[in-house]
């Protein structure tokens, strides 16, 4: 039974359950809703909960588990001959699924009858061509083993979804009856629904958390795998980054220090640009600007934050880089040989971070109580004296927090670096040289056809973990400082 219809049926049961629950509750109260513990709607919602939650829950679990179970059974039944020298079990199984899928489509389009699909044998028909006609292309002729397996696969699937339909509907009906039996005027439907809502919300929250944990675990496992192939000492303290790609042979040097240096250097320049400008903009907007100017300037500044970073990357590559070369390039002082450089990426990243710094600082400066300003003005201080000596010191912890948050964004930024900073890993102090960062190298190690089991590819996970730990540390520190600061004025 198609899932779609199953959902419709359960929903229809739920709708009926709602009405039944309501009227049953009213009936038990003698038609007067004041005799009920809860409003009639709550009894209806209670029934809906019982009908839908177990049924849909089971359906989801079933849909996730069924393919795994069927794959396992089919794979176990495949004769040894089916998996020959030059293939793997995985490839054969995907063939089986494709053939089964093709047969499904052929039946769906009327090219075969259900019986033909079940009984067709490789000797009798040119299956490959038939399937190609319905839009499923196969790499080779279908062996009889695979065909048999595919037919069994279809049988299992059909049985499985039939079973699922029956069980789900039974569960929905059971829930309906159970909920209706519980519905009396004494029953506290309101409290039960409340708890149901709570459970749903908690479920959503735990999905978010579980995903995070999942991502973390995949990072950690791959990192461990990497350190099995490559020494951790060489990774953390190696001064050279020179991966050799598969095919060319030779050992790779995968030292993270040149990348960390590039990350640090570019972020530093970005902060040197964004912190003063962002902070001054925030001071102007929060202390000096009239409400009208503020209403226009603040959104404009925040538009900068909405520009995709790839656009900044293009700006770096096409505008800022060439401009810097024309000033510092071979024709003048000769410090810069190409457009991609630490300076290019740093400047553009700084521009990207300005709205980030300014809008956070603006919030923080606004959070300094008006009483502080009044106190200072009342003593005969001017506006700039007040800002320098009272407001900024009071806001300082929050501003430091904002800067740390900006730093963690700079460290994690990728596109601007890929396009603006170049690809050479280098430990150098010259800001006009090309360098590269951790993020840019993660991209380049995973793109292109590298073998995912080689240290050259797995190093991306170690880099990712390093980056994750760095930014997490910065974020935690920043949030701690900002929160501490907020408490001060509550």
């Amino acid at each position: 039974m198609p899932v779609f219809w199953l959902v419709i049926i359960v929903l229809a049961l739920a709708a009926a359950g709602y009405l039944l629950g309501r009227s049953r509750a009213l009936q038990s109260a003698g038609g007067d809703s004041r005799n009920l513990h809860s409003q009639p709607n709550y009894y209806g919602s209670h029934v809906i909960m019982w009908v839908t939650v177990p049924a849909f829950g089971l359906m989801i679990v079933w849909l996730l588990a069924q393919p795994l179970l069927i794959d396992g059974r089919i794979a176990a039944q495949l004769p040894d001959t089916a998996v020959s020298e030059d293939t793997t079990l995985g490839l054969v199984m995907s063939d089986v699924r494709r053939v089964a899928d093709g047969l499904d489509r052929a039946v769906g389009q009327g090219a075969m009858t259900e019986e033909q699909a079940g009984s067709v044998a490789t000797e009798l028909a040119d299956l490959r061509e038939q399937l190609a006609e319905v839009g499923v292309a196969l790499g080779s002729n279908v062996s009889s083993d695979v065909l048999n397996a595919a037919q069994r696969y279809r049988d299992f699937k059909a049985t499985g979804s039939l079973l699922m339909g029956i069980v789900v509907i039974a569960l929905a009906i059971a829930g309906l009856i159970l909920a209706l039996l519980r519905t009396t005027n004494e029953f506290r439907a309101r409290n039960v629904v409340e708890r149901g809502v709570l459970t749903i919300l908690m479920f959503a929250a735990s999905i978010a958390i579980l995903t995070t944990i999942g991502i973390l675990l995949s990072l950690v496992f791959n990192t461990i795998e990497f350190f099995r192939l490559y020494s951790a000492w060489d990774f953390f303290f190696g001064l050279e980054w020179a991966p050799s790609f598969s095919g060319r042979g030779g050992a790779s040097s995968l030292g993270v220090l040149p990348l960390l240096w590039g990350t640090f250097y570019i972020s530093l320049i970005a902060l040197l640009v964004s912190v003063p400008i962002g902070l001054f903009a925030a001071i102007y907007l929060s202390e000096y600007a009239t409400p009208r100017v503020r209403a226009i300037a603040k959104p404009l500044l925040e538009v900068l934050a909405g520009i995709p970073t790839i656009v900044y990357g293009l700006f770096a590559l096409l505008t800022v880089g060439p401009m810097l070369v024309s000033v510092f390039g071979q024709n003048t002082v000769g410090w810069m040989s190409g457009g991609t450089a630490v300076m290019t990426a740093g400047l553009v990243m700084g521009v990207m971070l300005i709205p980030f710094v300014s809008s956070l600082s603006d919030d923080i400066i606004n959070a300094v109580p008006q009483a502080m300003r009044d106190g200072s003005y009342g003593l005969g201080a001017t506006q700039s004296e007040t800002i320098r000596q009272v407001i900024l010191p009071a806001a300082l912890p929050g501003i430091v927090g904002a800067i740390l948050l900006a730093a963690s964004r700079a460290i994690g930024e990728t596109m601007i670096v890929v396009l603006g900073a170049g690809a050479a890993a280098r430990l150098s102090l010259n800001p006009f040289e090309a360098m590269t960062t951790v993020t840019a190298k993660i991209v380049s190690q995973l793109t292109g056809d590298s073998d995912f089991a080689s240290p050259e590819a797995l190093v991306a996970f170690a880099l990712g973990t390093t980056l994750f730990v760095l930014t997490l540390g910065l974020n935690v520190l920043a949030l701690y400082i900002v929160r501490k600061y907020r408490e001060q004025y509550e």
Partner: protein
Amino acid sequence: MNDMRLTERATDMKEIKITAEGVDVFYGDAHAIKDVSVEIEDKTVTAFIGPSGCGKSTFLRCLNRMNDTIDIARIEGDILIDGEDIYHPKVDPVQLRAKVGMVFQKPNPFPKSIYDNIAYGPRIHGLAKTKADLDDIVERALRRGALWDEVKDRLQEPGTGLSGGQQQRLCIARAVATEPEVLLMDEPCSALDPIATAQVEELIDELRQNYSVVIVTHSMQQAARVSQKTAFFHLGILVEYGETGEIFTTPKDSRTESYITGRIG
């Protein structure tokens, strides 16, 4: 001419420090103060009383031009301190505020050390030439704020760490440190407990020796305890102004009487 009359009357009255004539204040279109004229004496505590929202704070803030920091506020009429119009274009409001100190309803120490809180004004106005001078000013201000004995051993600790009453006395000491001539206080005790209130009231009485003090209060007992003159405001109008004793015992206006006996509030 004016001066002549003043000196004649000075035999039974103190010198006039602040003169307000026909003052009107508008917040946008709202008319918050209506044609108020009043003469405030030197070395006297003057109390402003009246139901909340009647314009006491607004009028007080006119006296040191704090209303200038509010965009929508507009002031008409004349206010003279020592015979000089404080709204005259050549008067710098920042300079004026050094001369007319203000203490606010809620204690608002800066997030700095006790010492730096007091030294803030003197530093801005360059009152001390040396560190020793500054130390001296800080000690004198804290003594006048009746806080010296409590904090002399922890001047470098943050002012925000003091108790509410201590914080308010710190704010008073901070205002005193810039050597003002007038001290404006807007409900300085409303955030304090009774003991701290008593300490601050005692302090106000002492400050009278040197300053003209104007205090807004919602407590009539407080007005009766600390002030020599009382002004009663109602709906933006100065209803009655006179000796505190007379206002509280024999009010001339029926509105004053109703307020004092608790019928308007």
